[in-house]
């Protein structure tokens, strides 16, 4: 199995605070990995380093063996990473279809000249964008109007749109930041199924999630973080049994409160 994502002792610090402090892990093809840990453990910071929104203080990130440390997000996305955000980051005033089309920016090979002259290639690519956008919306099981601004949609629907947008990117690696947050039970079940179907497309998934039920059922490997460090890794069963993990979660709360930097 070749590694889609390799993270080697990644470090990022804000001022004095070490948000991520020597994190290493790797994700393989068709693998679903969960990153868990108390608030402020540095999970999202790690995501932001991998996707280039934060510049790591040290350490390295490789996508499909390609060194991407410190590159700008767009280039990393081009290298084959796609993500969702902890708190939705859609384009509120644009229509659902447009939001999904955003994921396809790197495809279609339509130049501005094509656009001005309305060349056949323009017409073809526009049709392709629309069809694929609809395809992915169907894929994530989005019902409802697709021609209206997303700001008019319910939270659950918006979450689906964001995932559809990420999928439209057709990347080998999908990073989901708390996909289940704010979803009700049945929605979570649908999410579970959806994630498996995505994996079956040949995409590896790394997700940050607080819902243990979901994590335990979905992921093949779990990485437990605390204070920016990896304190445990293994199958759900192993992790459940790991005393360090239990301490991290049930242990003195104020520790969790002290640490911050999970921005």
């Amino acid at each position: 199995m070749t590694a889609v994502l390799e993270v080697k002792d990644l470090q990022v610090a804000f001022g004095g605070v070490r948000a991520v402090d020597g994190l290493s892990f790797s994700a393989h093809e068709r693998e679903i990995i969960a990153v868990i840990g108390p608030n402020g453990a540095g999970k999202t910071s790690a995501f932001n380093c991998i996707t280039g929104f934060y510049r790591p203080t040290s350490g390295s990130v490789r996508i499909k063996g390609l060194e991407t440390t410190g590159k700008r997000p767009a280039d990393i996305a081009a290298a084959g990473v796609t993500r969702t955000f902890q708190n939705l980051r859609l384009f509120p005033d644009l229509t659902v279809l447009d939001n999904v089309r955003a994921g396809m920016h790197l495809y279609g090979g339509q130049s501005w000249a094509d656009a001005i002259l309305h060349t056949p290639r323009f017409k073809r690519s526009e049709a392709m964008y629309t069809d694929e956008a609809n395809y992915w919306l169907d894929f994530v099981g989005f019902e409802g109007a697709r021609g209206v601004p997303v700001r008019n949609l319910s939270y659950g629907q918006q979450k689906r749109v964001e995932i559809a947008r990420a999928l439209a990117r057709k990347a080998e690696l999908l990073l989901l930041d708390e996909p289940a947050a704010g979803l009700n039970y049945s929605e979570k079940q649908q999410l579970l199924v959806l994630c498996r179907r995505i994996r079956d497309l040949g995409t590896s998934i790394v997700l940050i999630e607080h819902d243990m039920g979901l994590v335990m059922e979905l992921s093949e490997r779990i990485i437990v973080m605390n204070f920016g460090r990896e304190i445990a890794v293994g199958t759900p069963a192993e992790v459940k049994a790991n005393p360090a993990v239990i301490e991290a979660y049930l242990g003195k709360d104020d520790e969790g409160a002290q640490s911050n930097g999970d921005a």
Partner: protein
Amino acid sequence: MSENIDVTLAPLRVGPPRSPISRLLESRLIGWVALAAALLAPFVSASPYSLNVMTTAAIFVLLASGLNIVVGYCGLLDLGYIAFMAVGAYTAGIISKSFELPLLFTIPAVLVMTILAGLIIGAPTLRLRSDYLAIVTLGFGEITRITANNLSVTGGPSGIFGIPGLLKIGGLDVENPAVLYYLTVLVVSLFVLASARLGRSRLGRAWRFVREDEDAAEAMGIHTYKVKLLAYIFGAIWGGLGGVLFAAHLSAVSPQSFIFLQSALVLMAVVLGGMGNMRGVVIGALVISLLPELLRDFASNRYLVFGLLLVIVMVFRPQGFWPARGYERERATVDVDPPAVATEQGR
């Protein structure tokens, strides 16, 4: 968080056009009607004055449609847009005068110069927050004007005069106001169409993504910096050609024509009409350029009236006369009009 001037681009009009009027207004028909009106106007009145005013208005429409790319599509507040027009006008004027060339032949040079200007202004500043971008563009605008005012190659304060016409082919003399007007209308409508089409393309969407949320756009592999720079360059080209027409129209270029007020007026046209919606922008441009003429009878008080009107319009219609409609056909198939921009064709 964002460099968008318009984080709060408040709810657009949603859903399909309902009333028959708005359906008519947003069909392709309206573009043709507008063009027809423009072409027929001279049959109503062809006095030098009315031709002059109409030509000026047409040029102003071109400028507005160019600024709309920068501000309306991409959300970059530019307070010095007129500088691009200045670059275009001066380049055209100087070259055509020193080589006795018809203005038409100066266009390649103008394109080079304006694109250069776009890069020079854009490259160092596009990383700035919108408010700083605003003041920096304003600064560039002033620098351009003052430099033109101080250099001798630009004719100093009195500028360049007696610029040859666009073109002279045998009998057809483009210096004839009527001919010039029609030529201007032709060029302008082509460029309005072009920028509308750009707005409905992959690049146009990328501009909107950047306007709405840069980080999300980056995460989807959109190189926001390049995209912004492209917006600037296109805006610059539109402005530069506006400058060429301006030079052809006045046969003179002088610094007073490029004061900050002019930039402000173009911006007003864009916002007043409805940012991002090419049709609205065209209307806004017509209003802004024609209103002061219509208010001439108020003589010195016309700017008072103008100012009050601006406030009133903004208070009652903050989205502009004709904001973009956040709507596209469901399950649209081939040659769909993509979203938000569905209304944006100058055709």
